[in-house]
């Protein structure tokens, strides 16, 4: 893997296709997507359910492999990587999920530490950084609480801190406000906006218009293809 960190294009998709086998019926989730995302962008992917937007996000996140077409992350062709290399690549991608996906038995601090511990960072260093990150997202006094003791918004902020822990090249968010109330959603949106202002590249899938309005670029996906790609 020859990662070029000076590369400005963080994600590039060429004729990306993904076909699922649903029973005996093949379902074409993506039918040839071409896309380029530059460093520092804030891209919002919109589309009705079943349009393939989540599939696109999973492919960009190296969680899934395309059926055909090419995907480059930081200039690396993902099709040349084996499973282990793909896994290592994910260390450099920050995921934020609709259902937070925190480990319930771990405290907020331990959850943030987890991604760094997977990356092999030593205990003292990762603790310090996790504390700093939680402080940055405004959870300084909730660090030792378990997810069940935190509100939805607080859990999502822990997830953001976790996603940022390994200094990712970009953040991928799947409906980050999909599972919180509107007041909390506003907090989460403000946080995302601030992250982008600080230079973090963000790609997200959402139905939340309050969130999509903040994006600098909006991509509509329809029936597995990009219907429109607008810069706000």
């Amino acid at each position, binding site marked *: 893997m020859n990662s070029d960190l000076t590369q400005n294009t963080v994600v590039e998709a060429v004729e990306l296709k993904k076909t699922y086998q649903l029973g005996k019926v093949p379902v074409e989730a993506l039918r040839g997507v071409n896309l380029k995302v530059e460093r520092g962008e804030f891209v919002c992917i919109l589309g009705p359910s079943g349009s393939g937007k989540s599939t696109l996000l999973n492919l960009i996140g190296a969680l*899934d492999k395309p059926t055909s077409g090419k995907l480059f992350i930081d200039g690396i062709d993902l099709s040349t990587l084996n499973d*282990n290399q793909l896994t290592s690549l994910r260390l450099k991608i920050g995921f934020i999920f609709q259902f937070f996906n925190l480990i319930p038995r771990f405290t907020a601090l331990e959850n943030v530490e987890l991604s760094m511990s997977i990356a092999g960072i030593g205990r003292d260093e990762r603790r310090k950084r996790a504390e700093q990150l939680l402080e940055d997202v405004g959870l300084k006094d909730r660090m030792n609480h378990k997810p069940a003791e935190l509100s939805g918004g607080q859990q999502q902020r822990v997830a953001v801190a976790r996603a940022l822990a390994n200094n990712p090249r970009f953040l991928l968010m799947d409906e980050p406000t999909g599972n919180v109330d509107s007041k909390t959603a506003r907090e989460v949106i403000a946080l995302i906006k601030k992250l982008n202002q600080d230079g973090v590249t963000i790609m997200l899938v959402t139905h939340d218009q309050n969130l999509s309005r903040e994006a600098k670029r909006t991509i509509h996906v329809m029936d597995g293809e990009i219907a429109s790609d607008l810069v706000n």
Partner: protein
Amino acid sequence: MKSRDVFSFSFSAIKLRKLRAGLTILGVVIGIAAVVALLSISQGLQTTITNQVEKGLGANTLVITSGTGGILGGASGGLSGGSLVPSAPSSLSGANSAPKLYLNYTNQIQALSPDITAVVAVVQQSGFIQNGDKVIQISGGIVGVNFSEYASTYGNTFKAEIGAIPLSPSDNDIVIGQRIYDPTLNGTTFANVNDEVTIICTNTTQLPYTNQTYTAKVVAVLPKIGGFQISGPSDTGVYIPITQASSFFGTDEASSIIVTLKNSDSTRITSVSKLITNYFDNQVSVTSAADVSATVSTLTSTLDLFLGGVAAISLFVAGIGIMNIMIVSLIERTREIGILKALGMKSRTVLTIFLGESAIIGLVGAVSGIILGWVLSEGVALAFSGGSSGITLSPILTPQVALLALGFGVGVSAVFALYPAWRASKLRPVEALRYE
């Protein structure tokens, strides 16, 4: 991921399901405890028997009997025939080819090797002893020996606890074992030193069988010897001078000849044994403590194998228990595995975490099992020791057995967790994350 972090992750998963992990550990504990207890007891048994054999036979003594059966073979009608079955008298068994072992062979045997320090001939018959109106059977046999030679061969056991053993006894002097002196071991003595008793022996050399008797005087009582005796003094024996035995039994044949060597060096034992069998043209059996121990250890290894097999089954069941709980854990934690993989955890690490979990279960189970097994074996030993046999069984837990048990506990756990761990590592992140 650092191995310490992998370990603490495995541990946190176990801590979450304490009862379940506890029950799984219990399965391992029972399996390992069974292995350890059974093997320690069997090992202790073997050592006890070997010690008894060496004590009873003497590590540096050889027993020569006529015929090829050996003293454990029973064919010779030698020492082992002493209790209930009368020794086959020479005239009746004269038809078979077993050569006669005469009392006066001792000098010839003595001359065979400089390694031989003493040769004692023993004449033995079954019989009864009567004191007043009380008669008891002499289950250890009426044993005719040269008192001074016998005492020098069996210095530890052929010594007087009460009275004194005369070096040149008169014909009617006898020495009795502890359980002739006090048959029930409760202080009610049958005969005391200086008592006049009647020795009764059935003459089977001619029909009709007749009882022969003579009046003897008890001069000494042996200390309590305990255990079982293969040769040498026993608690249930009555010892009379060899000359008296020869004339009383009407024979000049020895039931057995006991050869004492300079030491218990095994090559010396083997070479002298060979020398003697060759001298008698392979018509006699020479038995040493080592021979008997070897027979015993063959028996106990078979026992070990059997017990080990039983214990292995319980370990196998424990292993299935582990596999079961790991599969349940895998299903419950599918989403967690998806998260870990999405965060960049390698399949190998996921595998290690699952194997680590079961290895911890195995380790805790094995250590507890070894302790429990040891306690159990001590308990069993306590329950079976003592009693009239006088044999104390002390279980032996060798470091090898402990290590083996530890290895098995962890090994079985890891092996049975391989499949669930492999399945966990192969989960695809997208599907795992979708799992509810």
